[in-house]
């Protein structure tokens, strides 16, 4: 498998495909079961975010290899209208469209790094990274 891969998100089945790709990357990096499940859930969330604020977008996966650290970077981007009030979207207990605990705060909790930029009229970009921890295999 290549170290980078992008999936365009327009239909619901694209989410399933993106989860599959993300899962493959995660397995390749030898993440534990729990972390793999969280990565899949994160992909659902950021795809959902694309549907929420734009019509379509794409999700790209990239294996990060640095000094002694390995990880999976996921970037979701769209050219939709952008999120006006990021602060509110990031607040717990605010999102009503989804189940409790979901939404942007949920993504932030599941991942190690989280970054969102949104320009009104131009679009939104969410970047997350999950690092492989040495003890991940032990749960």
């Amino acid at each position, binding site marked *: 498998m290549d170290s980078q891969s992008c999936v365009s998100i327009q239909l619901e089945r694209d989410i399933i495909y993106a989860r599959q790709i993300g899962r493959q990357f995660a397995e390749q990096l030898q993440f534990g079961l*729990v972390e793999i499940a969280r990565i899949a859930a994160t992909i659902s969330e950021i795809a959902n975010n694309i549907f929420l604020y734009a019509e379509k977008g794409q999700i790209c996966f990239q294996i990060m290899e640095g000094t002694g650290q390995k990880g999976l970077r996921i970037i979701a981007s769209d050219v939709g209208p952008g999120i006006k009030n990021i602060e509110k979207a990031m607040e717990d207990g605010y999102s009503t469209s989804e189940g409790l605990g979901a939404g942007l705060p949920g993504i932030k909790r599941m991942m190690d790094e989280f970054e969102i930029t949104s320009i009104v009229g131009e679009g939104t970009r969410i970047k997350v990274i999950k690092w492989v921890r040495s003890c991940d295999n032990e749960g």
Partner: protein
Amino acid sequence: MKAIMLDKETYKQLLNQYISTQDEGALYRAERLTRNFIKKNILPEEIIDLHIQVLRETYPTIYEEMVYMCQFLLETMISYGLAIQENETLREKQLAMRTEISLAANIQKTLLSSTLPEVDGLDIGVISVPAKQMNGDYYHFVTGKDGSIGIALADIIGKGIPAALCMSMIKYAMESFPEQLMNPNDILRRLNHVVELNVDSSMFITMIYAKYKNGLLTYASAGHEPGIYYCKETDTFYNLKAKGLVLGVSTDVSYSQYEQELKAGDMIILLTDGVTEYRNGDQFAKRGELLRIIRQSMKLKAQDIVENVYQHFNSLSEYYQQDDFTLIILKKY
């Protein structure tokens, strides 16, 4: 991190113990452990992960399908794990809000404190206890240059922070009125205007305003709980009748003004509905109960009477204070 690993080992041991003995003690200890897990942010999906590990260790030749089942379960638990994590943040926010409100309640207390005026021939007592942190009842005493005193007693319908802000507005408005206008009906008319202008229509205020000078009580009421007059001569309690619309409902309202003469031994009792509409178990008290207690302690100083009344209600075993409680007693001597 080490400690968490240890917890997980304990959990696996308890699980193995339960598999072989179905021991209640293992379940009980697992429950204790789980409580700790929640505090330490160990989530349900991680518990399932432990199960998969035990499954593989205990049954090395297990069908792969059973592991798949557990993996499916683990994925399912992610959403629950997220909900639980949100819980923690919400709890923290709630705690912060509590602190903020208790700070605000303190400010409100000093802001709205009113010292009892000293008037010859009049013994005054007052008690005001909020049901929650912020008080929605408001009382205020003013001493006029002519030796009269003014007594305002209001109940804001609506609770919490909005009520507290509303109250400070009333206080501010009242203090800005010129003194020569200090007639109860004028004051209510003007206050009604201020409230009508400034406050959302969902909130309104009942108020009784009374002025005392040389044995004569003049008063007007804006839909407030009627005051009570105790006549020493006949040894009887009478309601202080007064009509008037609550503040903040209509633009132009005028209020009638009433008078009551006071002789030595007479009393005036002003109160908010929280005094009479308290709940004792399933029962609501009547005004009769209040009067009974007042009669019992009538010989005491006014301040002792009001405190006595509150103590009485508060000591009832099933008493639950639903509303703010304010009671003012004037004793002519």
